[in-house]
C-alpha cells in the first residue's frame, strides 16, 4: 500500500492518495484537485476506486466536483450528501472493503458533527479532528469537550505506532500526540487537576 500526501495550497490542507497493491486508488479529502494530484492518480493507480470525505468543510471537499467530472467514483462520508453529491454513508465503527483495503470509520464529533477518522491498516486519516500538537477549533467549550472525549476514547486508545495523517500540517504518530499534544495535555490537566510538563 502506498500513501501519497499532497499539499493543497487552497485551504492549506492535505489531500491523500492511497493505492493498494492492485492499483486501486482512494482519495481522502480532495480540498483541491490540481495538476499534481491528477498526475499522481494517473501514475500510481489503475483505477480510482473511492473518495473518502472526513467532513463537509470546503477546504476538504472543494475539489470533489472536479474529481467527479473526470472519474466515475463512489464518494463515502458520514452524511447523506456533500452539497448536491450523494454519498455512501459510513456509520461509527463500520468497516467497508474498498479495492483490497479495509477502511474503518470512527465518528469523532466536535469540530463538526459529521467528522470521521478513517483507519486504514496501521494509519489513521484524521481530517481536522487532531493534527500534530493540537486538536481542531470548535465553536464552543461543549464541542471542545465532546471532541476531546471522542479522541480519548477512539483515537488515543489505538496502538502507539499508529501513523497519523491529518487534514492540515505534518504527519505524526499516536505516541507523539500522547506525549506532545498540548491541547490534550491541557485538557487532561484541567480535568484531573494534575499538572504536566513536557520537558
Amino acid at each position: 500500500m502506498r500513501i501519497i500526501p499532497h499539499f493543497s495550497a487552497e485551504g492549506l490542507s492535505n489531500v491523500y492518495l492511497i493505492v493498494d497493491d492492485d492499483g486501486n486508488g482512494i482519495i481522502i479529502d480532495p480540498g483541491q484537485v490540481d495538476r499534481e494530484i491528477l498526475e499522481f492518480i494517473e501514475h500510481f493507480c489503475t483505477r480510482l476506486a473511492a473518495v473518502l470525505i472526513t467532513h463537509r468543510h470546503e477546504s476538504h471537499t472543494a475539489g470533489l466536483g472536479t474529481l467527479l467530472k473526470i472519474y466515475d467514483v463512489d464518494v463515502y462520508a458520514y452524511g447523506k450528501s456533500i452539497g448536491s453529491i450523494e454519498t455512501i454513508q459510513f456509520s461509527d465503527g463500520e468497516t467497508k472493503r474498498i479495492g483490497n483495503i479495509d477502511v474503518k470509520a470512527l465518528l469523532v464529533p466536535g469540530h463538526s458533527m459529521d467528522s470521521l477518522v478513517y483507519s486504514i491498516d496501521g494509519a489513521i486519516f484524521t481530517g481536522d479532528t487532531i493534527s500534530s500538537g493540537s486538536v481542531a477549533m470548535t465553536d464552543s467549550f461543549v464541542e471542545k469537550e465532546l471532541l476531546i472525549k471522542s479522541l480519548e476514547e477512539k483515537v488515543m486508545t489505538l496502538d502507539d505506532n499508529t501513523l497519523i495523517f491529518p487534514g492540515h500540517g505534518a504527519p505524526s504518530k499516536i505516541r507523539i500526540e500522547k506525549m506532545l499534544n498540548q491541547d490534550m495535555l491541557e485538557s487532561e490537566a484541567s480535568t484531573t487537576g494534575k499538572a504536566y510538563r513536557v520537558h
Partner: protein
Amino acid sequence: MFSLKKCSMPGCHAFTYNGGDYCFHHSENKKELFQNAVRMLEKGNEFRNISMPAASFRNLEVHKGGKIIGSNFSFCVFENCTFEDVSVYSVFFDFCVFRSCVFHSCDIRYAIFSGSTFTDTIITDTAAIYSNFMGINAENCDFSSNDFYYSNFSLSKLSDVSMDDCNLKRTSFRSCITKSVSFRFSNPEEAFFRKEEPYRIM
C-alpha cells in the same frame, strides 16, 4: 510507505522491515539487513519503504542526489552522518538522536523529527516543509538558510540555535522554549508563537 504489518514476534508491536514476517530487530539476518540498508543509503539512488527503528548509524554519507521515501527510522541514532542533496519524503525520524550531522541542500517534505535530539547538527540550504519538529531538543545547532514553511516546532527546546535567513511563514513555535536563538534575516512575524506560560510545574 513502509509496510504497516506488525512483527510476528509475540509482544512486539514494531512494523516489519519491508513487509516480511519480522521487524528489523527480530529478523534472523539483522546484521545483513543493516549492511544492505547502509549500502542502499550510501550507494543507491533510492531508499524506499523500509522500517528499521532503533538502529545506529555512524559516519554515514548518504548518496548525493539520492531519495529516502516512506521509511521509518524511529529511535535511531545518527552520528557524524551527512545528508547532502538528498530528498526525504514522508520519512519518520521521531525520537532519534542526531549528533554532529549535516543536512545540506536537502528537499525534506512531510518528514517527522518529533521528540528527537539534535546536538552540534547543521541543517542549511534545505527546504524542510510540512515537517514535524515538535518537541525536539536542539542544542548548539545551525539551522540557517532553510525553508521551514508550515513546519511545526511547537513544544521544542532550542538552545544556542541559529535560524538566520529562514523562511518561517506558517511555522509553529507554539510553547517553544528558546535560549540564544537568532532569527536574523528571517521572518518570525509570519510564524506562530503562543505567549502564555508553556507549561505548569508542580
